[in-house]
């Protein structure tokens, strides 16, 4: 099978490689790297710049940054994926029903969604996290709820568009029940948008987790996430900037990879590329 054109250029390839690499690290690193390599404190080597012993330097407690950042991938990716999954589980049915049924249901549901969209996502996530009490699970819930309206809106738009396509009308006259229509005709045609939006949401979720943890309202020690690492480095920016740069670069690479991949995905799944002969 030929690789779709959108992925044959460098942006798509680089994005795909980055995403794959980060995923690999997130899944495999906890299996290969024993916990104490990342938590072992060596006070004599604290805040040391990159050396042979510690290729990416150490933090203020003498912990090796390379291992911490590799293990941090697992936490950050897990939180981000769970949050996006949650937003899909809530937002997909919401948007689908709204777009398919239309009229009053659509008006009411979208009015609610628009209200939620007036709250900046980060603010909503921070508030939910603060009220629930910040920890790993609540971070997932907070980010998940904050992202749901964006996904719901986009899915509603797609569901609306697809519901009015002639093939859906034809399927109706072919005797399909509402359930079959939704499952066999509408859902497959909104999946491309869902996939692209999920990829982009994933990128934002990583950024959101970093932001929440940076402010102390996300993951808490001893869970090591990248945001927490950056937060810890705040007091040492002058003496040891690499303590911020290492986790920051990890976030940047992941988000960059996801954005590139998402862009290429969007181009590859563009419905306009289907149907031309």
């Amino acid at each position: 099978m030929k690789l779709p054109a959108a992925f044959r250029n460098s942006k798509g390839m680089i994005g795909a490689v980055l995403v794959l690499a980060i995923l690999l690290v997130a899944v495999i690193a906890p299996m290969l790297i024993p916990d104490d390599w990342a938590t072992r404190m060596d006070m004599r080597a604290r805040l040391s710049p990159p050396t042979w012993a510690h290729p990416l330097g150490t933090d203020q407690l003498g912990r090796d940054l390379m291992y911490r950042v590799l293990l941090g991938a697992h936490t950050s990716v897990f939180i981000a994926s769970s949050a996006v999954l949650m937003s899909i589980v809530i937002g997909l049915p919401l948007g689908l029903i709204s777009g398919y049924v239309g009229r009053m249901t659509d008006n009411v549901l979208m009015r609610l969604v628009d209200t939620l969209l007036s709250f900046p996502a980060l603010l909503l996530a921070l508030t939910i996290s603060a009220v629930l009490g910040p920890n790993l699970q609540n971070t997932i819930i907070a980010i998940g709820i904050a992202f749901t309206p964006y996904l719901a809106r986009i899915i509603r738009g797609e569901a609306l568009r697809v519901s009015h396509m002639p093939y859906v009308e034809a399927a109706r006259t072919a005797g399909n029940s509402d359930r079959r229509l939704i499952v066999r005709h509408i859902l497959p045609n909104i999946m491309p948008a869902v996939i692209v939006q999920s990829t982009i949401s994933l990128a934002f979720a990583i950024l959101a987790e970093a932001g929440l943890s940076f402010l102390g309202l996300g993951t808490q020690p001893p869970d090591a996430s990248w945001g927490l690492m950056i937060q810890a480095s705040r007091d040492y920016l002058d003496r040891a900037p690499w303590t911020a740069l290492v986790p920051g670069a990890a976030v940047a690479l992941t988000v960059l990879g996801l954005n590139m991949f998402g862009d290429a995905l969007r181009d590859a799944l563009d419905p306009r590329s289907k149907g031309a002969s």
Partner: protein
Amino acid sequence: MLDSDRPLVSIDNLRVEFKGEDGPIVAVENVSFTIAPGETVCVVGESGSGKSVTSLSLMRLVEFGGGEITGGRLEFARDSGTTDLAHADPDTMRSIRGDEIGMIFQEPMTSLNPVFTIERQMTDGLRVHRGLSAGKARARALELLQQVRIPEPERRLKQYPHELSGGMRQRVVIAMAMACEPRLLIADEPTTALDVTIQAEILSLIDRLKRETGMAVLFITHDMAVVAQMADRVVVMFRGNLVEEGPVEEIFTNPKQDYTRALLAAVPRLGEMRGKPAPEPMRLIGAEPARSAPVPAAKPKPLLEVSNLTTRYPVKGGLFRRTIANVHAVEDVSFTINKGETLALVGESGCGKSSCGRSILRLTEPSSGQVLLDRSDITSLNDRDLRRAWRDMQMVFQDPFASLNPYMRLSEQVAEPLINFQLAAGSELKDRIATLFDRVELPRSFMTRFPHELSGGQRQRVAIARALAVNPKLIIADEAVSALDVSVQAQVLNLMMELQAELGVSFLFISHDMAVVERVSHRVGVMYLGRLVEIGSRAQVFENPQHPYTRSLMSAVPIADPTRRSIREDVQFRPIPSPVFPLGHEPGASEYDEVSPGHLVLKNGLGASVQ
């Protein structure tokens, strides 16, 4: 002064390429022809023939779309001698475009900048090429609007494009192209997106302007009837190559190339069904001869009885988005379709023919009226029974690209109605589908394919197969062939007629194309502003139209015969009024005169007339 012996334009061995995924795509190759001063040359071809690319190359606009002229010369005669446009520098081209060569395009709805006034768009070309001041440019713009016979020209200048109708916008675009009195007007499918009456107006306008100014016209089209009416010489293109060229009469009466002959055979000509009792498949070249032809039944039995059908759509607006008015899409329409026969509904855009078809199937809910299919009342069925009723009525939609689910295999889509209505299962299901594919003349290997792997015509065949799967009594074809190329259209029409002869299925054929309708119908109904203004047998309506609207519609249709030029001196049809009425407005019932048995004409005197 230009030498009238020398050609104005001489295209020599043109070759144009585009960048493709796997290497360059040749869009046009080895194309050579000339245009003499004051002559109209029509370039005709189906989609993919390269006709548009040729005209865009002349203006060097093809580069903006990713194309490149990789060979040939485009000699254009100017005051200073001839210039090869293919190798001219950008400044030269800019001074020629809009000044010595004007161009108009296909889509009037998007040809004008939505955020600029008409005045601004008409004058900026003038100010660039002629250096006119704002005042002088405005005066000239007014002159041009009058030249193209736009009503209330002063008012139009201050308006924005969205306030003008499609026909008026096209007039403005023509005025813009004429602003600097060009020697050549390139018209790229300028009437394809317009209604037949507006098309007639625009064609007569172009013809008049040509005679008044002596300019040459390069007219791109896919419509052989338009070619017959407009051309002095014809260039036929196919897949990027020039197939044949010559004077228009010769091309029509004595085509030399096979492709040209096949193309001409596929064009339905208005008037050639005179005296024939029933629809007749077209005699196509290069395709198998049609197997059978529909015959009118000795004793017609009614299948579909529509009585007083009315469908209105609400218009929302104002505070709280209340309903402030209604669109009277279908107003008191009644007709009958007999078993094994085809009734055509013709009319221009907005006349309600599509709404009528959709209301019969209840894809759109009618506001009032009754629809009986084989004596059972469709209009009073609940949702579940309606779904079962669709076993007997199916629809084929206009857009072959949008009427198939891009993510479902074709065999599955054809199988769905059979599965849902529990008509077949297992191996019997597979056999039924294979038979259906055979019937619509598609190879069985297509069954496992997806829609994007097929062409438009092939997709439409799949849609017909899907509609046939349940053996319906009635198929509603809503502009089912309008989006297809001429040769493909003819094949699909022949298929429909064969199916009718073999299976006895009735068709409600909705179309705006009079010539096609003449070919396929037993009876014809003409719609205007939601009402049926005339209905009768095909012979009655076509050979003896009574209602003023039917008459003006007939007079506007171009005839595919160069010896019968019907472009009259400045045609102006009354614009179609809006079917939007305030709430509670109750227009009267439709009353008809029976002019001859079965031939009904609306009494109220609605309809356009030639001014």
